[in-house]
């Protein structure tokens, strides 16, 4: 196995052309923080993009940044902070969950795995922020998709397709993202001692209000230990993050108090850190259990309370996005068929985020697609990577 460490698009192109000629598969990595996410790979060689790093162009006035795919997210965020700006999807750092160091994830990796933070409930997921990219396809060509302005409908919206594609469509070499202003003030409050059911109702009520909350999460008692003081808040704590100017915040807090009715509301210091901890799955890092990410319609009707479902909440879990996203621990080694089935019924899906290699080999890491869609997915994969050179089988057999 060879590792091709590349630092330019031309070098990526060279490595891919070599792979084509030799029919050798490539595992695409940045800093490797999420190599253990997805179905296990057995690639011939490694294409290491961590040297393809650096901000290419940052125009604060245009609220747009272009960076090479291997640029650490931390480097981008530091540059943005200097101009009071941020990435709207609040990239989540999954590194520690996989035992890797924090703050080393690359922008290409975060986009490819769609690591979306709590603020995505307000600003959208990374797919809503990637305006354009450059990449190399399996035909051995460098090309671009999308553009570098906030509003663009010229040609197919390829950037969407690359978000969450796990590198299966080929290596990104450069990405252009839209930016948002950092609000003057941010405040996080915890609504304390709320049960799961009450918390989900409350979070949804806030989500349906004009508060434009940038974080709507829930830490139940069973998971409280991993969140320090939050663990002492009775049945669980619903977290609400609001932002704006001083006057706007006062108004929002007053409105929030009306919405939470009889529950207690307390200010939480370092709210951003708590949201980052939730979105990174970091609280599950030290556990032996498998970690699943469930996406569902935020409102689950009454039969949701069935005992079988209730059982699923005995292990550690946390909710984000007003209940639309659930991180949960599960018995190690399960293939997830039951969870997938349950999610399908409720109109959502489950992903196996962290598990042993053997489990990921056996389990459905990504929910199985309906046959017609699965065929289309195979054709889409082939449209970018006909020889199956890039991360083959990382999502499903053949993709």
């Amino acid at each position: 196995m060879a590792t091709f460490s590349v630092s330019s698009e031309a070098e990526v192109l060279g490595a891919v052309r070599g792979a084509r000629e030799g029919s050798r598969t490539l595992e695409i990595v940045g800093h490797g923080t999420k190599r253990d996410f997805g179905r296990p790979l057995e690639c011939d060689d490694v294409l290491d993009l961590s040297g393809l790093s650096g901000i290419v162009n940052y125009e604060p006035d245009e609220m747009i940044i272009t960076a090479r795919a291997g640029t650490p997210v931390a480097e981008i965020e530091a540059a943005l902070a200097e101009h009071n700006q941020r990435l709207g999807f609040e990239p989540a750092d999954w590194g520690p969950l996989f035992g890797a160091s924090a703050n080393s994830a690359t922008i290409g990796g975060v986009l490819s795995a769609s690591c979306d933070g709590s603020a995505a409930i307000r600003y959208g997921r990374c797919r809503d922020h990637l305006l354009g990219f450059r990449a190399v396809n399996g035909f051995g060509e460098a090309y671009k998709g999308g553009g570098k302005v906030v509003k663009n409908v010229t040609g197919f919206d390829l950037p969407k397709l690359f978000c969450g594609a796990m590198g299966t469509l080929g290596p990104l070499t450069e990405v252009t993202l839209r930016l948002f202003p950092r609000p003057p003030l941010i405040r996080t409050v915890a609504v304390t001692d709320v049960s799961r059911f009450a918390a989900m109702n409350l979070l949804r009520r806030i989500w349906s209000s004009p508060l434009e909350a940038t974080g709507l999460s829930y830490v139940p008692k069973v998971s409280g230990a991993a969140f320090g003081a939050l663990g002492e808040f009775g049945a669980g704590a619903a977290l609400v993050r609001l932002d704006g100017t001083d006057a706007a915040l006062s108004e929002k807090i007053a409105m929030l108090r009306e919405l939470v009715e009889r529950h207690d509301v307390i200010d939480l210091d370092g709210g951003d850190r708590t949201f980052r901890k939730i979105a990174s799955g970091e609280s599950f890092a030290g556990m032996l259990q498998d970690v699943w990410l469930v996406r569902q319609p935020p409102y689950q009707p009454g039969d949701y309370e069935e005992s079988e479902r209730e059982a699923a909440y005995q292990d550690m879990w946390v909710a984000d996005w007003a209940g639309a996203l659930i991180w949960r621990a599960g018995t190690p080694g399960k293939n997830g068929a039951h969870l997938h089935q349950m999610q399908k019924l409720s109109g959502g899906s489950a992903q196996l985020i962290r598990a042993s290699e053997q489990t990921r080999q056996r389990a459905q890491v990504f929910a199985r697609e309906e046959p017609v869609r699965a065929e289309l997915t195979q054709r889409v994969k082939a449209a970018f990577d006909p020889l199956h050179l890039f991360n083959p089988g990382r999502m499903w057999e053949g993709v």
Partner: protein
Amino acid sequence: MIALPQPDPQIVQRRTEIVAALKHLVPDGVVSEPAGLAAYDGDALTAYRQAPLACVLPKLKDEVSAVLALAHEMGVPIVPRGAGTSLSGGALPRADGILLSFGRMNRILDIDLDNRCVTAEPGVTNAAITRAVEGQGFYYAPDPSSQIACTIGGNIAENSGGLHCLKYGLTTHNLLGVEFALPDGERIRCGGKAPGGDGLDLLGVVTGSEGLLGVVTEATVRILPKPPCTRTLLVAFHSVPDAGACVANIIAAGIVPAAMEFMDRRCIEAVEVYCAPGYPTTEAILIIEIDGLAAEVADGVARINEIARASGAHEVREAADEAERARLWKGRKAAFSAMGRLAPDMLCMDGTIPRRALPAVLARMAEMAKEYDLGFCNVFHAGDGNLHPLIIFDVMTPGELERAEAFGAEILRLCVAVGGVLTGEHGVGVEKRDLMPEMFSEADLAQQQRLKCAFDAAGLLNPGKVFPTLSACIEQGHAHVKRGAMRHAGLPRF
């Protein structure tokens, strides 16, 4: 002028057979008489007219599938159509193609306030979605100016924007899921009430695909709580560059207004004649709207006032009540019709540019108008740099259409040259098809066409739109797709 396609005689010859087969599938929904078809001979790119071979109006998604399967089997092109309001010719029919109209698929299927979404058939109008939920305090955010007529299916195909997409995004940001049909009639669901996580983001790439990848048969969209407070400002300037600078300054200050619209003198004057919204007579105005909670809106209004004055505004006027607010917007929304009164024909361009390039691009466009000797005005979504220069001309005056198109093309080339794009919200369609190489390299276009082939190998969905050249689709894909090779020699392009 882009030549209309030479219809494939082999398809036209089978017209009777095709119409009979369609009538068998949708007995009460086939238009085949010339008089009836004349009503479907184009969209809002009015310079181009072409009656379809036949028009079919299914009521059920199974009928949509059956029509597609039939067309697939017989090798007949399909042009999907919502309300026919495309400004780029996206719904322009083909004389050898079936026009698949969603005019009768206009039911709202599900209103789910708990999950803040509405599921609708593709022929439901944009405005009808808001109407269905406004009583409960919600609305659907994307608001293209044609929202009373345009359909959600068309909005998805074009990834439509609108006046308020600066803050609330385009269709793609407000769309949760679709069911769409492939050319053989098979239907696929992607997205839904849960946020993502269902494999490759096919929803994202079908949105804005201009009917080339699939035909949407059902859509689920996000609805938003109506903001409790909305304030609207009219800001007047003695010079266009000052107005452009004001836009850039507001964005750079980290303010995200709900809308920020620009109109120049010519447009202001035309609108005053047309519907008298009471705009000041000046070189340029901005209409800026801020929404949210009262305190934050007050804050935004105060800051915009400051920035506007500092940028050289000579008047900042706030709509005192809902009636005045409606009047301010009426003028902006009527810009199109008002300009249309000045000449028989009009072209509306749609490039997006980096906001910092606004002053230079506006100045250069004014020079070009002189060079081409054509009337034109600027009205556009300033907040996101999305230009809509309106070029007026008379198609009956020899050479004017050609001059107008050349002027438009030069504007779009300028947009690309300063780092922008050909189209911000109207789509490529027929209108900008031949300009695609200005923005995309051969490799860029080849990649997009390979994706097209993954969805529609036979090239039957809306052929002749978006791509300047047709490429053959090779199933295996191992070989380099041969570019420029014409598939279906008899299948003409626009």
